[in-house]
C-alpha cells in the first residue's frame, strides 16, 4: 500500500513525508556549453508512491574548479522520474529531492564517474536516504550534510564506503522485518530499477519494498500519544550468576539520611526477581533488558569451566534481549564468540571440558545466546564488514528504539592478540553517529547506545543523581555524539552512575548509565517517546540487587530486599553442581607441592616474578612435550602461572591433581606457537628480563630484587649476576653470565637456529603494544612462526596424564651475588 511516510526529525524541525500524485514536468537542466565534464544524472524519486514535482538538486565535485562544487537541478515528473545535468561535474555527488516539507537524499559514489560525459542513475528514496545518512557521520542530519557537501568527500563516498553503508541499511531493514525478497529488491537502491506504482502501472519489487518500509512507520499518524518504555540494563556481569564475594562486587553502599548503609547484593536468582518487578511496573510489554558488554569472560569457575555456557543459559532465562560485546567477549577469539551467539558444543579438542565436550544444558545441547550481540565498530579486515550486527530495532507499539552496540576501540590492548586477530576496532563516536543517522533516517523514534566503555564519578553512595565528578574515557565520546543519540548505556569501568550528561556536540543532555559489576545492580531507565517527536523525557535509577537475608534488614527508605526466583535459583544450583563435577576429574598426580615463587608482604602472599618459578618451569616442560615434531626450548611468562599446586587438599587423596587445579593455574586459553630464534637472540631474550622497562615492571618488595624472570624448560640453564645494575636500555643489558647459557650442558651457539615454543600471549606482537608482550620483543622477531592451535591447558593436562607422580623441577637459573 502507498501510505503516508512517518514523521521524522530533520534539522530539529519535523518533516512530514506525504505522498500524493501530483502532475509534474520533466525538466532537463540546460548545459552551459562548457568544455569540461558533463555529468548527467537521472533516476526516480519515490517514497513508495512517486515523489512528483520535487526539485532535485545535485552537488558534485568539480573537475574544472578543483576544490569547488558544481551544481545542477531538475524537477520530477508525475512518475517521480527526473533528469539533470551537472556541468563540469564529476562524482561524488550528493542529491536532494525536496517538495513541501519532504527532503530525501541520495548520492553518486566517487568511483562511479571519472570525468568526461557520463550518465549515471541515482534514485532518491527512503532507502537511499538511509544509505546517505549512514555516510553522514559528521553531521547531525542528512539535510545539513547535503548543504555542507564539498568536493573532498571522495573518500567518504567511495564505492567501498557506499557498499558498507548499503549493507548497514539492509541490516536495519532486516531488523525492521523486511523479507528476503524485499531485501533482494533493495540490493542497490541508488542504481537499481525503480518503477513506482502510478495510475495503471504496477510497481516493481523495489517499489513494493518501499511500501513495506512505509508500513513499518506510523501509518496511523493520528495516534501520536506519548509512550512509556522501560529499559533495564546491566554491564560487566562476568558470568557471576552466583552472588559475588562481599568484598569483590557483592556489597553496595546506600545513602541513609546523612549516613550510609552497606548491603550485600548480586546473584542471578535475586536479579530475576528484581527484573520481574520492574517488568510489572512497565507499560505492558514496553520493556527490554539489555547489556553493555563483558556479560561473560573473566568469569568465576562455575561459569568458565563451562566455557560460559552456564552464564549464557542463565542470561537467557533472565530475558536478556541484546548486548554490546565487551572486550572480554573476545577473550577466546571470534570463532568462540560466534559459537556463544549461535550455539553448538565446544569439542574436547577445542578446549571443552577435559575428556568431553561442553554442552551442559539439558539434553547435552547449547543453543547459544538468545540475545543479540552487537558490534558496530568491529570490522573483519578480510571482508570490511562488521563481525556481528551493528544495530537492533525494537518497536514498542507506535514508537521504536534503534539500539547501537559496540565495544571500546581499545579492546585489542586488553585481550590476547590472538583473540582479536583479523579484526579492526574503529573509533566509537564516528561509528555511533553514522548508525544513529541511519537509524533516525529509517524512522526510529529514539536512539540508544550500548557501549562497553565508561566513566567514573566521585560519589560515595550508589544512585547519587548529582553525578559528581563524572570523568573517564566515555566523556570525549559523549562530547562527539550528535543530537540523534538520546541514551548511552555504558560499562567497562565497573562503576555505577545515572547521569544527565550535557554533551557539547549534541547540544543537549544525554542520559548515561552504568550499574557497577558482577550483577550487583540494575539500571532502570524510563523513557517517554512520542511518535513524530522522539524522546520526550528520560530518567534513570541504579537499583541494587539486595538479597533478602538477615544482614540486609532495616534498609533505608526506597530500597527493598529481594527473594530468589525459584526457576533461576534451580538453574544456578544445577550449574554449580555440574561445574564442580567437571572440575573434580583427576588428571594426574604429584609427590609434593609444586609452587610459584612468592613472597609475603603486609600479610599478603604475592606472586614473585623476579625469581624462578618451579611450577612455571614445569609448565614450560609441558609446552616442550606438546611441540609438534619437538622443540629445543620452551619459554613461559611468569604471569601465566596463576596459582600453586598443593599436595594436600581437603576432601581428596593426597597428590591427586584435578582439572580444576590445572585450569585455575593456567586459565587464559592461549595456544602454543613455535618459532626459530638464533642463539644470540635467546641471549638477548634473557637479558630483556632485566632491561628497561622490565626492571621496574616487577619487583620483590621484601628482597628488593627486580625483573621479570621467564619460566624455562628442562635442559636450558644459565646464571645471572645480581650485582650488575638492572634497567639497561633495550639491547644493552649485561646481567647474564658470559658462557653460562647452555642447552643440555652445551653452550648455546650464537649463530645456530633453535626451535622455540611459547604461548600466543608472548609470541604475537600486539600492534597497540609495540613494546611487545611483557616487553619481550625478541619473541616477536622469531622466524618460521607457527600457531600449533594446541591450547596451553591441553598441553598441561596431557603432560600430567603422561607423567604420573610429578615433582618440583630442580632449579635451572642460578643467581650469582
Amino acid at each position, binding site marked *: 500500500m502507498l501510505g503516508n511516510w512517518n514523521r521524522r526529525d530533520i534539522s530539529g524541525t519535523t518533516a512530514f513525508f506525504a505522498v500524493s500524485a501530483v502532475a509534474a514536468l520533466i525538466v532537463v537542466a540546460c548545459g552551459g556549453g562548457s568544455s569540461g565534464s558533463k555529468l548527467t544524472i537521472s533516476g526516480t524519486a519515490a517514497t513508495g508512491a512517486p515523489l512528483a514535482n520535487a526539485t532535485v538538486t545535485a552537488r558534485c565535485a568539480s573537475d574544472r574548479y578543483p576544490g569547488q562544487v558544481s551544481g545542477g537541478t531538475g524537477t520530477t515528473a508525475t512518475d517521480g522520474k527526473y533528469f539533470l545535468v551537472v556541468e563540469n561535474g564529476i562524482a561524488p555527488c550528493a542529491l536532494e529531492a525536496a517538495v513541501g516539507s519532504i527532503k530525501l537524499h541520495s548520492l553518486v559514489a566517487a568511483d562511479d564517474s571519472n570525468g568526461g560525459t557520463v550518465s549515471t542513475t541515482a534514485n532518491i528514496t527512503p532507502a537511499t536516504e538511509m544509505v546517505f545518512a549512514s555516510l553522514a557521520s559528521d553531521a547531525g542530519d542528512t539535510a545539513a550534510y547535503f548543504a555542507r557537501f564539498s568536493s573532498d568527500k571522495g573518500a567518504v563516498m567511495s564505492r567501498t564506503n557506499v557498499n558498507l553503508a548499503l549493507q548497514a541499511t539492509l541490516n536495519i531493514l532486516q531488523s525492521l522485518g523486511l523479507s528476503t525478497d524485499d531485501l533482494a529488491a533493495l540490493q542497490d537502491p541508488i542504481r537499481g530499477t525503480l518503477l513506482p506504482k502510478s495510475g495503471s502501472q504496477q510497481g516493481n519489487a523495489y517499489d513494493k519494498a518501499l511500501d513495506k518500509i512505509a508500513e513499518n512507520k506510523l501509518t496511523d499518524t493520528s495516534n501520536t500519544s506519548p509512550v512509556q518504555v522501560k529499559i533495564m540494563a546491566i554491564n560487566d556481569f562476568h558470568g557471576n550468576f552466583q552472588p559475588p564475594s562481599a568484598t569483590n562486587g557483592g556489597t553496595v553502599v546506600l545513602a541513609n539520611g546523612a549516613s550510609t548503609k552497606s548491603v550485600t547484593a548480586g546473584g542471578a536468582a535475586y536479579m530475576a526477581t528484581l527484573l520481574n518487578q520492574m517488568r510489572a511496573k512497565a507499560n505492558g510489554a514496553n520493556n527490554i533488558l539489555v547489556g553493555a558488554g563483558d556479560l561473560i569472560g573473566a568469569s568465576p569457575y562455575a561459569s568458565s569451566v563451562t566455557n560460559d555456557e552456564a552464564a549464557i543459559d542463565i542470561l537467557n532465562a533472565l530475558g536478556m534481549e541484546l548486548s554490546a560485546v565487551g572486550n572480554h567477549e573476545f577473550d577466546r577469539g571470534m570463532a568462540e564468540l560466534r559459537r556463544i551467539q549461535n550455539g553448538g558444543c565446544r569439542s574436547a579438542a577445542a578446549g571443552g571440558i577435559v575428556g568431553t565436550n561442553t554442552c551442559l544444558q539439558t539434553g547435552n545441547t547449547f543453543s547459544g545466546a538468545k540475545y543479540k550481540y552487537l558490534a558496530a565498530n568491529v570490522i573483519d579486515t578480510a571482508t570490511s564488514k562488521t563481525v556481528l550486527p551493528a544495530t537492533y530495532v525494537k518497536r514498542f507499539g507506535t514508537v521504536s528504539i534503534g539500539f547501537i552496540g559496540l565495544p571500546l576501540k581499545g579492546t585489542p590492548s586488553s585481550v590476547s592478540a590472538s583473540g582479536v586477530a583479523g579484526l579492526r576496532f574503529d573509533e566509537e563516536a564516528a561509528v555511533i553517529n553514522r548508525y544513529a543517522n541511519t537509524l533516525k533516517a529509517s524512522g526510529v523514534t529514539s536512539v540508544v547506545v550500548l557501549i562497553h566503555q565508561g566513566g567514573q564519578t566521585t560519589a560515595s553512595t550508589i544512585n547519587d543523581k548529582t553525578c559528581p565528578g563524572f570523568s573517564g*574515557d566515555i566523556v570525549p565520546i559523549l562530547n562527539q555524539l550528535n543530537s540523534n543519540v538520546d541514551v548511552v548505556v555504558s560499562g567497562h569501568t565497573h*562503576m555505577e552512575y545515572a547521569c544527565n550528561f550535557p554533551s557539547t556536540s549534541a547540544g543537549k543532555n544525554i542520559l548515561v548509565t552504568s550499574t557497577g559489576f558482577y550483577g550487583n545492580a540494575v539500571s532502570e531507565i524510563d523513557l517517554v517517546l512520542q511518535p513524530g517527536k522522539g524522546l520526550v523525557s528520560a530518567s534513570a535509577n541504579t537499583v541494587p540487587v539486595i538479597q533478602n537475608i538477615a544482614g540486609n534488614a532495616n534498609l533505608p527508605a526506597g530500597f527493598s530486599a529481594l527473594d530468589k526466583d525459584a526457576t533461576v535459583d534451580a538453574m544456578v544450583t544445577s550449574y554449580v553442581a555440574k561445574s564442580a563435577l567437571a572440575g573434580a576429574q583427576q588428571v594426574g598426580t604429584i609427590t609434593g607441592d609444586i609452587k610459584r615463587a612468592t613472597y609475603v608482604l603486609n600479610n599478603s602472599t604475592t606472586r614473585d616474578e623476579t625469581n624462578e618459578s618451579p611450577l612455571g618451569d614445569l609448565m614450560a616442560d609441558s609446552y616442550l612435550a606438546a611441540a609438534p615434531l619437538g622443540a629445543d626450548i620452551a619459554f613461559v611468562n611468569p604471569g601465566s602461572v596463576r*596459582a600453586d599446586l598443593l599436595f594436600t587438599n581437603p576432601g581428596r587423596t593426597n597428590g591427586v591433581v584435578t582439572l580444576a587445579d590445572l585450569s*585455575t593455574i593456567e586459565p587464559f586459553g592461549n595456544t602454543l606457537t613455535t618459532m626459530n630464534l638464533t642463539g644470540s637472540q635467546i641471549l638477548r631474550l634473557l637479558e630483556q628480563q632485566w632491561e628497561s622497562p622490565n626492571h621496574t615492571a616487577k619487583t620483590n618488595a621484601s628482597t628488593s630484587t627486580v625483573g621479570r624472570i621467564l619460566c624455562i624448560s628442562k635442559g636450558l640453564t644459565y646464571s645471572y649476576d645480581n650485582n650488575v645494575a638492572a634497567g639497561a636500555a633495550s639491547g644493552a643489558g649485561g646481567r647474564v653470565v658470559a658462557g653460562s647459557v647452555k642447552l643440555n650442558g652445551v653452550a648455546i651457539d650464537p649463530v645456530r637456529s633453535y626451535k622455540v615454543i611459547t604461548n600466543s600471549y608472548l609470541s604475537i606482537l600486539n600492534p597497540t603494544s609495540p613494546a611487545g608482550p611483557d616487553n619481550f620483543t625478541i619473541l616477536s622477531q622469531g622466524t618460521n612462526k607457527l600457531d600449533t592451535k594446541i591450547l596451553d591447558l591441553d598441553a598441561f593436562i596431557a603432560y600430567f596424564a603422561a607423567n604420573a607422580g610429578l615433582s618440583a623441577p630442580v632449579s635451572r637459573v642460578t643467581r650469582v651475588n
Partner: protein
Amino acid sequence: MATMSASAICSFLLLWGLLASSPCAFAASVRPEQLQQVKDTALQAQDLCFKEMYRDPNAYALCIRNLRQKYEKEEYKSLGAEYFGFVGALSYMRVSQMGAEPIAAEFLKSFRANQKRLGLSDGALCATVPGDCVIRNRQMLDMEKSPKQQVPLQVKCEGGVCRIAPVQKP
C-alpha cells in the same frame, strides 16, 4: 628579622597543637590560591589515576603515590593528590571494588595528617572534589573511628580469572 623567645615558641607550639587537633579552626588561614592548588591537583589525580582503579587498584594507589611524590615540596598540591586518592577509592567502595577500602584507608591516614598541619577544614577540603560532603565526611569519620583490620590478600584464580582475593582460612 623578628625573633621569638623560647617561652613564646612553646606557647605557639602548644596553641598550634591544640588547634591542629581541630582542623576546622584553621580554615580561615588557608588562602584561596592555596585551596585552588589542592583542587587543581585533585583534578589532576582524577585525570591521571582514576581510570586505573577498575583495572588494578594497586596501580591506582601507585599513581597517586607518584603524584604525591612529584609534589612533595608543594604541600597543598601534595594534599590534593592524596585527598583525591582517598575520595577515588571511597567512590569505588560503593560497589565493593576489591582493594578499594585499604587504599582509601591509606590515603585517609596520610591526608588527615597534612590537612591538620595545613589547617584546612573538612568542609573546605571536601569542596575540592565534587560529591556529597555530608555523607563523605561522615564516612571519613566512621573510617577513622573504627578502622577495619586489613584483610590479608592473595592472588586467587578460579577457572578463567585471577583476582586479588582475601586469604581463605582452611
